[in-house]
């Protein structure tokens, strides 16, 4: 995620953007290449949505849709 100007939460901005643990494509954007959850200071996600994001990413990991740890080169 690129730094720079203050970003607004993408989920607050677009209320229609609903996601859950199956929306791997969306969740993937909030995770580093290695699979770590990107802090909200970098993505601009609001606290509430970051919390939801965290929960859904963890669920996605549990059912092996997303890795807990990924190789740096994929």
């Amino acid at each position: 995620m690129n730094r720079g100007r203050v970003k607004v939460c993408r989920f607050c901005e677009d209320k229609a953007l609903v996601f859950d643990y199956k929306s791997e494509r969306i969740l993937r954007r909030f995770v580093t290449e290695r699979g770590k959850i990107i802090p909200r200071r970098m993505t601009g996600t609001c606290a509430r949505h970051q919390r939801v994001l965290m929960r859904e990413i963890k669920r996605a990991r549990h059912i092996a849709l997303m890795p807990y740890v990924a190789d740096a080169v994929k």
Partner: protein
Amino acid sequence: MPKDYEMTLIVDTQLAEGGSVDEIVTRYETLVGEHGTIVNVDRWGARKLAYDIRKRQQGDYTFVQFHAEPAVIAEIDRACRLDDTILRHLIITVPGGFEAKKTNVADLDDDDESDDDDSDSDDTEEDSE
């Protein structure tokens, strides 16, 4: 009061003991049906796992949405846990019910990962098998 639940089942595609994936899924549908009412079943079919589970690299994904009393969940959970053909399972409550939860497949600006291999992993791929 019954709640809305969603169960994920990952069935081993190389089954040690008899029975096809479909049979196993049907068995769980029956089990859930006995304890509650099934709203929707979404079969994704075989899919590569993000990491190995019990030395398996792929599993067959099924999502079952159902209404049930909270008390029966423990039983369904137990059945999944004891079953060797189930690689992984997950039962969650759907906050606000199914109506409130409609996953949007049209995702964020698709700039960086347009060559994503499992781009159809969301709701678009619900008709496999």
